[in-house]
């Protein structure tokens, strides 16, 4: 075998080892990045647990593939040669041999022969896996995992999600048998379960539960109150929050005098009792969609009940006696006006829009 070929073969052994080492190094980093990306997705779009797992798995797989591809591409013969020169103290011998291996003159042959003799060692001893260099990557992985766990628990805790699934299914069955609603409760429950957009879904499911089963609703209302106490800046489920907001913005955000009066009366006894009363009266928990940056409770916004027996806009379906289509349009117009006046984030506007789309009258479909 010509000296140049022998040299390249020897060098290729070290190149394969370098690719393996670099792949491992990049893989650790890519997993950290994948978790961070998943965290960002969870923060921005609040997907469900299953979707989060899909995001995470996808990010990790893509990261690993990218890591291997990058290591494969970057660990060329030149890089391997330069690294070997440094590690083995060969004074740039391998780099020179690589460059002049095809020259064919005696000096080049001497360099190549000597370089080949220098590369007889075990690649794993020359290029070991280096844990110290991956320290920062391991730290970022740990940090990302902690961050992931924390943000997973912030907006939606697993207990509430489990309860949501259970209660949504139950209420859907009850609603289907009672046939009291124009839209399918089961469909809503399924949608909630699939979207798992926590605040809205929970509200709807809670409202449905409240209409059908005050006992189950009480539990849910209590859970909601606990969540709100923990997350004061986001969605407030407390009926008291709705009352405070409405009283603060009485001129612009009252949906109906009657509904407000009922709400205020009902909410006088704070969240727990208020929720129970609301369930008994066919009114669910109020939902506040406050301006971003505001404290939710004090900021202006739209407040309406989101029960299955009470239509948006705070008008009682059974009490008012008007057609559903009229009440729907009134409530929708009021919601749109209120949303237009407030600085509501686009994503939240979409939620409101989706909600009204879901409950639109059959004639509008």
């Amino acid at each position, binding site marked *: 075998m010509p000296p140049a070929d022998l040299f390249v073969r020897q060098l290729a052994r070290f190149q394969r080892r370098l690719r393996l080492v670099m792949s491992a190094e990049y893989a650790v980093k890519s997993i950290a990045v994948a978790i961070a990306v998943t965290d960002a997705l969870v923060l921005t779009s609040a997907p469900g647990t299953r979707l989060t797992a899909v995001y995470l798995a996808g990010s990790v797989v893509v990261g690993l593939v990218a890591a291997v591809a990058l290591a494969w591409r970057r660990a060329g013969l030149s890089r391997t040669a330069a690294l070997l020169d440094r590690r083995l103290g060969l004074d*740039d011998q391998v780099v020179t041999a690589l460059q002049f291996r095809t020259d064919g003159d*005696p*000096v080049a042959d001497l360099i190549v022969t000597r370089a080949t003799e220098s590369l007889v060692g075990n690649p794993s001893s020359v290029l070991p896996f280096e844990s110290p260099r991956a320290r920062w990557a391991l730290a970022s992985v740990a940090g990302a995992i902690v961050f992931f766990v924390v943000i997973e628990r912030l907006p939606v805790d697993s207990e509430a999600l489990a309860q949501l699934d259970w209660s949504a299914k139950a209420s859907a069955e009850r609603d289907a048998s009672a046939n009291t609603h124009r839209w399918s409760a089961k469909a809503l429950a399924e949608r909630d379960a699939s979207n798992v957009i926590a605040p809205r879904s929970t509200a709807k499911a809670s409202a449905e539960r409240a209409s059908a089963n005050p006992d189950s609703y009480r539990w849910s209302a209590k859970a909601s109150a606990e969540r709100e106490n923990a997350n004061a800046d986001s969605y407030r489920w407390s009926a008291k929050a709705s009352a405070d907001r409405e009283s603060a913005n009485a001129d612009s955000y009252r949906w109906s005098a009657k509904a407000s009066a009922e709400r205020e009366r009902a909410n006088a006894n704070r969240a727990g009792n208020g929720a129970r009363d609301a369930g008994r009266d066919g009114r669910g928990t109020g939902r506040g969609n406050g301006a971003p940056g505001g404290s939710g409770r004090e900021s202006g916004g739209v407040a309406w009940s989101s029960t299955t027996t009470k239509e948006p806009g705070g008008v009682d379906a059974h009490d008012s006696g008007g057609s559903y289509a009229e009440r729907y349009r009134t409530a929708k117009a009021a919601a749109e006006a209120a949303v237009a006046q407030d600085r509501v984030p686009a994503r939240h506007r979409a939620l409101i829009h989706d909600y009204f789309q879901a409950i639109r009258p059959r004639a509008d479909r």
Partner: protein
Amino acid sequence: MTTAAAVEAQAATFRDCFNGLKTEIGRVFVGQPALVDHLLLCFFCQGHALIEGVPGVGKTLLVRSLSDALNLRFARIQCTPDLMPADVTGTNVLVDTTGGSRAFAFQPGPIFANVVLADEINRATPRTQAAFLEAMQEHRVTVFGTTHRIEEPFSVFATQNPIEMEGTYPLPEAQLDRFFFKLTVHVPDIDDLAEIMMRTTGAQQAQITPRFGADIVRSLGGLVKQVKIADPVLRFALRLVRATHPEDAGAPHIVRQHVRYGASPRAAQAMILSAKALALLAGRYHVATDDLRRVARPALNHRIVRNFHAEMERVTAEAIVDAVLAEAGDE
């Protein structure tokens, strides 16, 4: 056709020759082995050296010892303000021909030697200094329109005194650039001084035995040029040279503050060629970045033109080169 075995034999001869010369010079010139190494590197690369040192430290003796150790023609030119260019290059003189008529014939000057010592070159006028230019660069001399080649090997070793500047003409940058290396002869330490006293004040004087002729020096010079240098190593040398320029993005702070002009491409040539010779001495046939680091100071020192601030703040060229070496990383 040259074979690998022949190359290895030549390399062994080069090492023997180099070490033999070093030993011979060491019989007369005491201490400062790095200085002797650089002088021999310069000679085998067929470059010229500017040797700077205070009076009495052995500058002339060093060059004289080198020429004595080689079977080569040696010439010494004592530079003074009244030295004329023709005294260096030679001139046409009127001679009687065999036919009885008279004709002009070229009478070669002392520059036509293998080893030329230009003692105290900064005492010669700029006009005379310029007479060295063509010879040093082109290895030829033009007199009255006729070009005369100088026999290889050819090296000019010029000395100058850095302290006594009265009545001197500092070498212009163009001429400084033609010197392959600038070497500094330091005052010997006490042990070396004791050895010098023993050798020079005793009854017996050390004798140098000539060892090699011009042919072997020429062939070894060819061998040096066959040594390979890889692209990354070459680029390291070029980065070093570029870093001496204040306008270069990679220049250290000290360069931007204290350098007016950086080193020329000749500096890179000198570094690479001498690094090749160093590699051969180390038994290698390729240049390493460490070789370049070892020859950077003598190759760059005299090619860096400092500005006013550097002179006022006494920032030396050596300090600047050290900063460049410290900041120039391997890619």
